[in-house]
């Protein structure tokens, strides 16, 4: 079995001469929430569609649970729950009836799957209300119910908070967290909102104009994007004592025996280096890292940033 639930190799989708997705190498590890971040039209939906076999890639391969998708749809796709673009259901049927159709076609894991799924998203079971009378938020909830009805291992959710009010968004966020933490699901979620992804995801992939610019865990990104001065010295213990004693600086962390990060930029860094050297320390590197997470995204996407 593969280390990754989802892995793509050189995935490319070309519409005419324009590459919607170019040479994508995506890696989603089990039990994690992977946030695909990108502006509208960056290729998020196309990527997700290719993962589900809804769109045939121009080139490249999709591996799900280490198995190539083409030819194994029948065994792989039922293990995925998905929500792509706007929710689509039959308007002349009620929510329960709509779910019943998909339950009959795909199968469900237990007798009360439809009722449980509706309860989970807060919609009434066996309600008389037709889908056409639903509000946007309720439609979105029903789409989520459809995605989780068969208790899948992997969830692929394309902008799941679309059309929800702020309370709904917060609920959805904790709902997705719970699915991941309590039920061990792997979740791929896309969004164009940085704050949403940074609140939810464990790993982040940044997609811009069809190119995956960066793929990294949020912890590492946050660590790297904190404003700090990085000192590489021969003895961090000694350096720490000097910082405290001579410069009254306490806001630092020690990475290992040689790397020290100082989280205060208004310091006489030059004098610090002199003090280190005077005390017999070797200083091999000093650099200032002054990016916030948002700055970082702006930088990797090359400009305007992500709203």
């Amino acid at each position, binding site marked *: 079995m593969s280390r990754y639930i989802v892995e793509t190799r050189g995935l490319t989708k070309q519409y005419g001469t324009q590459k919607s997705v170019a040479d994508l190498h995506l890696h989603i590890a089990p039990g994690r929430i992977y946030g695909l971040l990108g502006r509208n039209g960056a290729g998020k939906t196309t990527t997700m569609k290719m993962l589900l076999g*809804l*769109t045939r890639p121009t080139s490249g391969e999709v591996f799900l649970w280490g198995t190539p998708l083409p030819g194994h749809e029948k065994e792989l796709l*039922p293990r995925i729950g*998905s929500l*792509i673009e706007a929710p689509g259901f*039959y308007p002349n049927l009620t929510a329960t009836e709509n779910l019943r159709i998909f339950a*009959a076609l795909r199968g469900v894991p237990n007798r009360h799957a439809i009722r449980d799924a509706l309860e989970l998203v807060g919609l009434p079971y066996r309600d008389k209300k037709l889908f056409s009378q639903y509000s946007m938020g309720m439609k979105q909830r029903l789409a989520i119910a459809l995605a989780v009805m068969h208790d899948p291992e992997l969830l692929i959710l394309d902008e799941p908070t679309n059309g929800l009010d702020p309370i709904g968004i917060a609920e959805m966020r904790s709902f997705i967290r719970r699915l991941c933490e309590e039920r061990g699901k792997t979740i791929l979620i896309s969004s164009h909102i940085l704050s949403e992804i940074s609140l939810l995801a464990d790993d982040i992939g940044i997609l811009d104009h069809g190119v995956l610019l960066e793929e990294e865990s949020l912890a590492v990104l946050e660590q790297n994007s904190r404003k700090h001065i990085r000192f590489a010295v021969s003895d961090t213990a000694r350096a720490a004592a000097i910082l405290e004693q001579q410069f009254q600086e306490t806001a630092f962390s020690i990475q290992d025996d040689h790397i020290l990060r100082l989280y205060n930029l208004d310091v006489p860094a030059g004098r610090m280096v002199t003090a280190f050297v005077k005390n017999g320390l070797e200083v091999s590197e000093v650099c200032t890292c002054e990016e916030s997470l948002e700055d970082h995204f702006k930088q990797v996407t090359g400009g305007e940033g992500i709203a």
Partner: protein
Amino acid sequence: MRKLVWCELYKLKRSKSLLLLTSLALLFPAALTVFTKSSLADAAGTAELHAYYDNLVNYTLAYGAMLLLPCLFGCVGALLFFSERDCDTFKNLQAIPVTRNQLIFAKLGVLYLWSELYALCSGLAVTLFCFVLEPRTLYDVPFKLVCFLLAGLTMATVSLPVVVLVIYSNQSYLLSLLLSFLYAVVNWLLLILFASHEVLSLWLPLLNGLMFVSRLLAWRKAALGLASLTPLPLGTYLRVSLYLLFILGVCILLLVRFYKKWSR
């Protein structure tokens, strides 16, 4: 497959347009009964009463199945085949996974089922109206209903091109309706223009569609001693069967091709 067909039927729940279209099955039986009611007054013997019933059945088959069925068939086809396009549910189905071809065959199955239902409804309607007017006119009812069922089957096949046309043009329901209507009228005109031309009439869809039905009715009458039967060469039956199968095959191929276009 059985599940898919069940789902297709389930999707039609509460669909008012389908109910409306199916209820049109009663249109010709009712109209014909009203217009021919007077001729029943002159009828004296059992033979004449039976002839009246036969006539009504024949006319219903001719108008209901030949003129109206292709027209309605196109609309029902649009209703079925466009439901995924209009509700945006194809992605949900594909993620199950249900393939495009499975879906097409399920929808075709439902189309045929509807056609049978329509034919049966008109058959039952004719019988009911005759029964109300004069119970003695009825005879050999089960056999006539079987004929209606067969007419539903063959006329559905003959009407398949209109579904292909509707899918190909990929328009709204109203335009699909017009298109189906056009197809039915053109068919009808062709029949009137070329019915006397022996070679061409062999390939008229409407004639071929009702060929088996009319022969069955004639046989039955001969068997009951009510009329004589002029035998047709075996080749004719073979030709009609092959013709129908050919239409079915070509239409399925085209359907698969055109349906792919927008559902990609």
